[in-house]
């Protein structure tokens, strides 16, 4: 049942992404990208990452895509005359995407058991024994809830990257104002 839901959502995400890069109007592209992001948010919930799913909707759809739509409408862009690049770019696209898709043939069959076998090098390996982090996270989520289980490592183990992220956001804020303002 869950598998069927996953594959439907995956199909929706791929269709949305393909339409996003093929549509000529930027607004229509943004709308298709929004459908991809909603599908991805649902997939995150399926993959036991409920908080990430909510953040996906809040940050990506609610903030970033709205920003894109603001800029598109501010610039008043219509449909471009010649939006696609020439045949050399098309050839490069076919080669690079083909190579990436060939790699997918092996990724497709991965499951935790095979991953554990490859990490340990043993013939048989139990993934729950090899990867202790997943069990610790499950226990933390059981006792502290979805948000609490993630907040503890974020504010303890990853505190320094978290603070650096705040500096990054401040830099982006100042940079955007400096770049976009006509006269400072």
């Amino acid at each position: 049942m869950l598998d069927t839901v996953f594959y439907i959502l995956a199909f929706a995400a791929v269709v949305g992404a393909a339409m996003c890069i093929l549509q000529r109007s930027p607004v229509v592209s943004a709308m298709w990208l929004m459908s991809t992001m909603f599908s991805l948010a649902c997939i995150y919930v399926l993959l036991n990452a409920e908080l990430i799913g909510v953040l996906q909707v809040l940050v990506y759809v609610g903030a970033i895509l709205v920003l894109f739509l603001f800029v598109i409408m501010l610039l008043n862009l219509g449909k471009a005359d010649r939006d696609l690049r020439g045949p050399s770019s098309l050839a490069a696209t076919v080669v690079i995407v083909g190579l990436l898709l060939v790699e997918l043939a092996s990724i497709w069959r991965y499951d935790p058991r095979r991953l554990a076998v490859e990490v340990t090098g043993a013939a048989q390996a139990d993934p729950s024994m090899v990867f202790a982090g997943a069990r610790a996270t499950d226990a933390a989520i059981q006792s502290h809830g979805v948000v609490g289980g993630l907040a503890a490592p974020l504010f303890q183990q990853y505190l320094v990257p978290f603070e650096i992220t705040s500096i990054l956001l401040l830099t982006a804020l100042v940079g955007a104002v400096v770049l976009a303002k006509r006269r400072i």
Partner: protein
Amino acid sequence: MPTAHLLGPALALSGILFSLGVAGILLRRNAIVLFMCVELMLNAVNLAFVALAQVHGASGHIMVFFVMTVAAAEAVVGLAIILAIFRHKQSVDLGNINLLQG
């Protein structure tokens, strides 16, 4: 609710979305659509992190937080640059933006 057996398909979906983002960057000339393709690629990376977090634990989820923050900062600065370029050139077509070509 164990869905860890979806690890392979989720990673494959992540790869497909990343490839579509690369294809969009190579094919399109509109700078704003190019930024959308970058967002698509960052989303694909997030999906790979979330899929592997089922096996490895919470660090994958926390990495997604950081990727989202970087994506937001990058979108803000990038769109500000596009706005500044549009004021000079009246266009966001990358074919017209060739100041750095020697």
